[in-house]
């Protein structure tokens, strides 16, 4: 047992830092600072992806033959940490993190050859058609139906909470292809072009007044059968594969650590009624310390997962808890953000949050993002399998209840 960092990893960190220092443009960095969601502003995020792609670093977690980097688990963690430290905007995950891995696992050679390079380069922007108005946590009850018609499927129905559907030119989606039997057994995984006739996209304005999510309507939308990934009625297997691929893939602690440090800097500038700085206020300090010690614990939980993966072992139960802990801490940190700023957090200037926009912030830039981050963070315990569903998974899969 030890915490030693391999020499190779230390050099690698320097290499990553040097690259980030020279590559991140002021425009991209501004978008990074103004990102108040897991989804960064599209234009700058895609510009950043193109720069990373030119370096060969757009998809470190993909197998090397498809354009991955061949890095070790440790190197990938270093890279992710440095991205957070540099305040780079996160890349949009639907293509690189979600659709890509499904294609790598189940796509035909033709599909892989066509789509994977376009995902890497950012030529295609993907959205994920999973949830429906009647199918959220109970995803398998989805109703959007794909009727077989010769070489095509004809799709009718609707998808909701489709992030960035209004920016995307492609969608990967789950549709029902059989009405009888177990709900999971009649689902098929398809790829479609968002310009196909019959598709209507209606953005949904969120609490933060940003139309990040959409509802998508399908009215006799024709999709060729060669756009099916995996077998007909076996889409559930494809969708589930992503969970294996992602296992232990996301670390929450590095970003939370950076956010807490920033919060302390902000608090140091806030003067309390007694004349001291808020940072020295015992009640404030106690709350932040409680959060910080929890983040320290989470960082070691995440290290334990990586240690197991590096040794070729199954991290098992641990990976099921990081989504819950990471997102709930994210919510606590954003709460502390608005508490720390008090009335300054109420100043509402969504236009000033648009990178390169012409509305100047009335206060400091950090005050601008606090409320939008708080509002948006309410979503993170809902998406990706709500935290109640995640607790159910721990109860069943880990505790055997």
């Amino acid at each position: 047992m030890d915490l030693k960092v391999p020499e190779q990893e230390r050099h690698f960190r320097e290499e990553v830092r040097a690259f980030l220092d020279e590559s991140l443009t002021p425009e991209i960095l501004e978008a990074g600072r103004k990102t108040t969601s897991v989804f960064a502003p599209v234009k700058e995020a895609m510009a950043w992806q193109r720069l990373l792609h030119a370096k060969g670093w757009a998809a470190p977690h993909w197998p090397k033959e498809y354009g991955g980097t061949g890095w070790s688990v440790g190197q990938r963690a270093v890279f992710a940490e440095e991205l957070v430290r540099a305040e780079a905007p996160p890349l949009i995950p639907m293509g690189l993190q979600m659709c890509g891995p499904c294609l790598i696992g189940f796509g035909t050679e033709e599909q892989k050859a066509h789509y994977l390079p376009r995902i890497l380069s950012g030529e295609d922007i993907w959205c994920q058609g999973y949830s429906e108005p009647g199918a959220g946590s109970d995803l398998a009850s989805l109703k959007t139906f794909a009727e077989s018609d010769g070489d095509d499927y004809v799709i009718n129905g609707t998808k909701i909470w489709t992030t960035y559907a209004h920016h995307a030119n492609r969608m990967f989606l789950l549709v029902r292809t059989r009405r009888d039997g177990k709900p999971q057994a009649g689902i098929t995984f398809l790829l479609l072009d968002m310009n196909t006739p019959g598709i209507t996209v209606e953005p949904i304005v969120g609490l933060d007044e940003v139309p990040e999510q959409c509802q998508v309507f399908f009215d006799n939308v024709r999709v060729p059968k060669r756009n099916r990934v995996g077998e007909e009625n076996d889409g559930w297997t494809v969708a589930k594969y992503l969970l294996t691929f992602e296992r232990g893939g996301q670390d929450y602690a590095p970003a939370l650590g950076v956010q807490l440090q920033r919060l302390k800097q902000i608090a140091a500038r806030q003067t309390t009624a007694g004349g001291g700085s808020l940072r020295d206020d015992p009640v404030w300090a106690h709350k932040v310390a409680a959060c910080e010690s929890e983040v320290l614990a989470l960082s070691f939980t995440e290290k334990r997962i990586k240690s197991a993966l590096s040794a070729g072992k199954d991290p098992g139960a641990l990976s099921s808890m990081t989504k819950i802990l990471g997102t709930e801490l994210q919510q606590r940190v954003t709460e502390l953000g608005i508490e720390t700023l008090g009335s300054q957090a109420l100043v509402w200037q969504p236009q000033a949050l648009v990178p390169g926009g012409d509305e100047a912030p009335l206060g400091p830039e950090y005050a601008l993002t606090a409320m939008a981050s708080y509002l948006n963070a309410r979503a993170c315990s809902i998406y990706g399998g709500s935290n109640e569903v995640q607790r159910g998974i721990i109860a069943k899969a880990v505790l055997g209840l």
Partner: protein
Amino acid sequence: MNFSLSDEQQMLADSARRFVQGGYQAETLWHQFAELGWLALPFDEDDGGLGAGLVETMVLLEELGRGGVTTPYLATVVLGGGILRRADAACRARYLPDLMAGDLQLALAVDEQERVFAPENTALQAREEGGGFVLNGRKTVVLNGDQADRILVLARTGGEPGDQRGLSLFLLDPHSPGVTLTPHRLVDGHRAARLQLDGVRLSADALIFEKDAAFEPVRQVLDEAILALGAEAVGALSVLLDDTVEYSKTRKQFGVPIGSFQVLQHRMADMFMALEQTRSLLLAATLKTLEGHDDARQAVHALKARIGGAGRHIAQEAVQLHGGMGMTDELAVGRYFKRITAMDGLFGGADQHLAAFARG
């Protein structure tokens, strides 16, 4: 970075688990510990010890915690032994062989009445006189104080309570004139004593470290004690969780096992996460201390705060989910509940350590 046990460490864990499960003789427990080499674990090979480190102590204490074994290991080996390990060669040669053979019990007296636990808070006076020292004052909750052959007493030779300077540590024979020991039990079944010193005369060689310079070594030993306690807590908490999950699968109400109720499932999922986060902090604090990282003490504070917070959460839920049976002395859950409760009270509670963590 690696969190796997070495083969030797795994063997230690296995043998400790077998020992604890195998039904041991409480009366001869300490000499069995000596025969197994556990009393020699943290001491240098030059002193006749096994030269093992904090990871080995962690491995052993987790198993003892799992077994709910009440032992003077913390007081004698971790606290007393931790002090002696840092003492000069003559002192080590005189006491360590007996300690490792199981023939010497120790205690460390730091706590004082109406004073929050902190070594620098010590008020008990040691006055220099005739080339030696005269000690006056009282120590409370001296773990293993009633059975210790020697008690290490932290006293003030200079400065005021609150000062880190001016603290000295004395090795006391409890049979010395002027010593009054009042033995008592702790809520978790451990033994302790109140120690009253009235004009107790000690020679200069009773001084363990340089005069006025005991703070730093005592603080290091207390850090190690928190790590040991953390390991024991992880062992005990895993039993509380396992027993609760098991009970909820067999206990039926409304015609079904209570573990089928989602409201209870989610609470047990939370207990599981709290346990694993505690284990993560135990690993963080142990390995950072072992490797001398700058933020090691921060991790120790975070761990102690968590033993209190997560410990209470898991232990209270365990009693609640066991219902009335959780309130009885019949089930193990009650015993572990009391041990976990005691752990928060030792060496400074959760709030105190979180405040120290906040100060950085």
